[in-house]
Every structure is written in C-alpha cells, then in structure tokens.
C-alpha cells in the first residue's frame, strides 16, 4: 500500500467539495430568477385586467354612424342607385339618419349593440336579424381595435369578445368579437356589463322583472303550482329504488326546464304562469329595436320635414320589413300577427332543438343539465325526502343558473406578439 497517495486523495475530495459548493452558491447567478418570471406573469395578467376596465370606461371618439345604412343601401341598389359612387346619397343619409355618440361609454355602447343585434345560430349559420345597427357595430369594432392597440402597444396581440346569451350556452342574443382567435396560452380577463334594458317587461298585461332577483321571486310564486314540479315532489316523497324513478324524474325536469327557458310555464288549467326566458328576451330585443326605429324616424322626419309621410307610416314600413325578414328566414306563416311573432319564433326554435340534428348540441346540453340535477337528487334522496323545501330551493337555483338575461360577459385575451 502506498501511503503517499493519501495527500492526492485529500486534494481530490477538497476539489470536489469546493466545486460543488461554488456550483450551489453561484447557480442562482447563472439561471433566470424564478421570482422575476412570476412577476412578469403577474404583470401580463394585470395588463389584461387594466386594459379591459379602461376600455369599458372610456367614451370613444368619432362614434358617428348611419342608422339602417345597410338596409337603405340595399333598397337603393334595388332601385338602381349605385351607392358606392354617389356621395350625394351618403351625404343625404348622413344628414338625415347620421348619429354621433358623445357621452356614452364603451360598455354602454357595447351593451346597446348586443341587445339590438338579434343574433341566432340557425342550423349551421349565424343569422343577424337586426341590420339597423350594423353601422354602430362597425364603428364600435374599429374603436375597440384602435384603443386596444394603443393601450397594449406592439408587445401584445389581443382578442376582445362581448357576448350576451340570455340562456347560457344557447347561441341566441348578441356577440361582438374583435381580434384574432387567441392561442391556448393567453392571459384572459373577464367581467360583466349590465344590459341597457327596461327592468320590467310586459307580456299579456303582466309585468315581469328581468333582474335575477325579480326572476327568482317570480319562480318562487309559480313553482308550486306547476304540474311538473308537483310530480317531482310526489316522486321524491314516494321514492322507490327502480329505473322508472330516474326516467320519470328526468321527464318532469325536462318539461320544467323547456317551459322555463323556451315554451313558457303553465298551471294545470293551462293558464300561463311564466312566458319563458326566450320569450322575455325576444320582447326585450323587439322593444329595443322599436325604440331605435322610433328615434330613427324622429330624426328622419325632423330633418326632412315629413318628406316621407307620417311617423306611423315609416315606423310600420320598417317594422314590416323586419317582420318579413324574420318570417322568411325562419319559415314562419306570413299571416302571423306581430303579437304572435315572438311566441311562434320560440316554438319554432324549440321544435328545431328537438328534431333538427344541427341543434343537437343544445339538446345535449339540456340533457346534461337535467342529468346533473337528477344525479344530485338520487344521491341525496334520503335527506331530500325529509325536507321537500330543500328540493324546491335546489331547483330554483338550478333554473336561475341557466340564465343571464340582464348582463353580458366581456372578455379580453392577450398574448405576446
């Protein structure tokens, strides 16, 4: 054995220890500081939040548009006027029907546009019924794009989406989208804006408050008198563990949700207790469009001194044009009166959901909602049998969670350029 080798071994051990120590101590100097990275992420996320809040608060510049420009342009083209070449018509229309928004903030303008779009996915296409406000929407989109580009600079790409779906998950209401489709790794900020709606809708001489609380109170008033609800409570009280229980419960809950959302809820005498959310939403949209048409006619007549006849004549002509458009788009009876139009449209929509393959995803969604509450009831059947009020409360909440009639969702996604 050579003892001289010991000193060499000590050196080697010392060397290894020193190198390891140096590595451990100096390592943070050579890699990116993880704190900085998390701060960067927080900053990006805050940038999205700030930009969205600021965008919704500002009053946009140059919000000038012509009401019904597209419709009038089409009508003039049919009459042989080449709109694109005629500055005269553009000037006349701008003078008569031009509007400038000075004081409304971006959130209010977005909400107004969403409420008046009357958009619906019909089969495979997205149909926008109300073309009166397409000018407003164009200007609004330009303004949103310009403001966000200024706010975010060249560092970020963005996608802004505002969506009003009175029945959550059902593509009916209004939508505005600005920017490219976002990638999966984007920073998203979300908030809600109030819809510019009358707080009360009158249908068949009855007032319906459209706030969440108003609808909750309304449900509490009628829920006990609805045959489907009575059946559900009977089924739970006389629970028997067999497949028929699930089948009957599902059927009654489906009746209840279709009634609440679409067809309307009736009592055992056939009296309408609640007209259905879709019906309420259609009334809101039609009210909004009517208000816009009335304003448009006021401006028009004020400017041109009744050159086109009396107010009622022009209002009716525009209303008729919209109604004709709706009837032909959805294959509705041409002789339908205005009062029956929204009910007929709702029924047509429900018929399509149930029978048309293109609407299968809506049917599946409703089946999923019903499946969730059926599972909950079966899992907690013993407790619920003893406390029927709990079932009622649960079903109230379940129905309310399907709607968002008085507010729209707004989101901003940003990602690095």
């Amino acid at each position, binding site marked *: 054995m050579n*003892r001289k080798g010991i*000193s060499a071994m000590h*050196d080697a051990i*010392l060397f290894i220890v*020193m190198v390891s120590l*140096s590595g451990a*101590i*100096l390592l*943070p*100097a050579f890699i990116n*500081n993880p*704190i900085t990275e998390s*701060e960067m992420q927080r900053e990006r996320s805050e*940038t999205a939040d*700030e*930009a969205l*809040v*600021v*965008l919704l*608060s*500002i*009053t946009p510049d140059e919000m000038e548009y012509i009401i019904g420009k597209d419709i009038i342009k089409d009508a003039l083209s049919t009459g042989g006027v080449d709109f694109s070449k005629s500055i005269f018509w553009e000037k006349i229309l701008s003078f008569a029907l031009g509007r400038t928004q*000075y*004081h*409304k*903030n971006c959130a209010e303008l977005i909400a107004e546009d969403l409420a008046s779009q009357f958009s619906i996915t019909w089969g495979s296409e997205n149909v926008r019924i109300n073309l009166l406000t397409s000018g407003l929407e164009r200007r609004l989109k330009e303004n949103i794009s310009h*403001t966000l580009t*200024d*706010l975010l600079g060249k560092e970020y790409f963005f996608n802004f989406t505002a969506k009003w779906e009175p029945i959550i998950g059902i593509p009916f209401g209004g939508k505005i989208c600005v920017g490219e489709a976002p990638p999966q790794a984007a920073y998203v900020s979300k908030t809600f804006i109030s819809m510019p709606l009358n707080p009360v809708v009158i249908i068949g001489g009855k007032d319906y408050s459209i706030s969440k609380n108003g609808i909750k109170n309304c449900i509490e008033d009628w829920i006990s008198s609805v045959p489907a609800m009575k059946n559900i409570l009977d089924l739970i009280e006389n629970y028997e563990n067999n497949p028929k229980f699930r089948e009957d419960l599902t059927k009654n809950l489906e009746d209840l949700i279709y009634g609440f959302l679409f067809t309307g809820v009736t009592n055992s005498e056939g009296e309408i207790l609640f007209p259905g959310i879709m019906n309420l939403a259609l009334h809101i949209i039609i009210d909004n469009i009517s208000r816009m048409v009335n304003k448009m006619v006021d401006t028009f007549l004020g400017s041109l001194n009744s050159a086109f006849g009396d107010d009622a004549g022009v209002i009716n002509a525009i209303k008729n044009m919209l109604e004709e458009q709706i009837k032909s788009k959805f294959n509705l009876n041409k002789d339908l009166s205005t009062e029956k139009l929204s009910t007929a449209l709702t029924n047509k929509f429900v018929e399509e959901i149930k029978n048309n393959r293109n609407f299968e995803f809506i049917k599946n969604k409703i089946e999923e909602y019903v499946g969730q509450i059926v599972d909950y009831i079966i899992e907690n059947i013993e407790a619920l049998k003893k406390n029927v009020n709990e079932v009622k409360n649960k079903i109230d909440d379940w129905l309310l969670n399907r709607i968002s009639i008085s507010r729209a969702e707004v989101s901003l996604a940003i990602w690095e350029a």
Partner: protein
Amino acid sequence: MKFIGDRKGVAEEFTSLPALVIVMIGFAIFFAMFANVYMAHNEKLKAAELAEAAHYIALKLTNAESPLTDAPLLINKEKWDDVVKHEEILRKYCKPSSYNYSISISSPFVSDFKMIGGKAKGDRMSVSMKVAIKLADGDVKYGKLIVTVWREK
C-alpha cells in the same frame, strides 16, 4: 512514524507549495465571485423591493377609495387638481414608511396634468398602470399613471 521521521521526505514540503498557492488563488477567486453574486443579488432585492413598493402605491392610488378616483382605475381630473393643491390629502391616504413617491399622468389626449410629489433622489423605480381619465362628465379618455418611488434618506 517511519514516514514522518524519514528525513528524505523534507523535499515534499516544497512540492506542496505550488498546490497550496493554487488552492489559495482558487479560494480568492471563489470569494470574489461569491461577493459579486451576493452584491448583485442584494441589488436585485433592493430593486425588487422598490418595484413592489411602487406597485403597491399604484394599486392603492387607483382603487375605488383613492382621493384621485371615481371608480377603480378611473382617475378624475378635478380630484387630481385638488390633490395637486393639497398634497397632504394624498400623503394621509398613502404614505408607505421609508419610501417617498411622485405620480404623473401620461396620455395622448391631455397634457395639463401636474406632477404630484417631489423630485426623486438616488435609486428610483417607476411603474406604470393603464387608467381611464375622466376629464368631464361624459368625457373619459385613456392614459397611464406613472408612479416613481425612492427611499427616504
């Protein structure tokens, strides 16, 4: 004992000197680097602390309770002008211990926002926050609130 007592081994002490020198140089370099990393780390910490303080102040000045705002992130020009005249309002509302700060607004739409707070001294850190600026009822524009923070000596 035989190994230690072996007089022929005297020469070995001299041969270990170069190795000792290398080790000492190694130690010296190691401690120099260690000190360097420590100082850089310390600087980073100080900068991070300043940034954190600036961020905290910016958040506090833009929330709904701030004497400058009407709503979160909505600066009111009138309130800003009041605070320019009476800076103590702002100091009462937000005065982090051992830090001082100044605030200003940058916007393509307005240029008459006066800076609030004194001139920065020594190491400083600035953060900016996107804000809406209410110039009058129905006239809201966008801009940036810039907060500059430094340590009080």
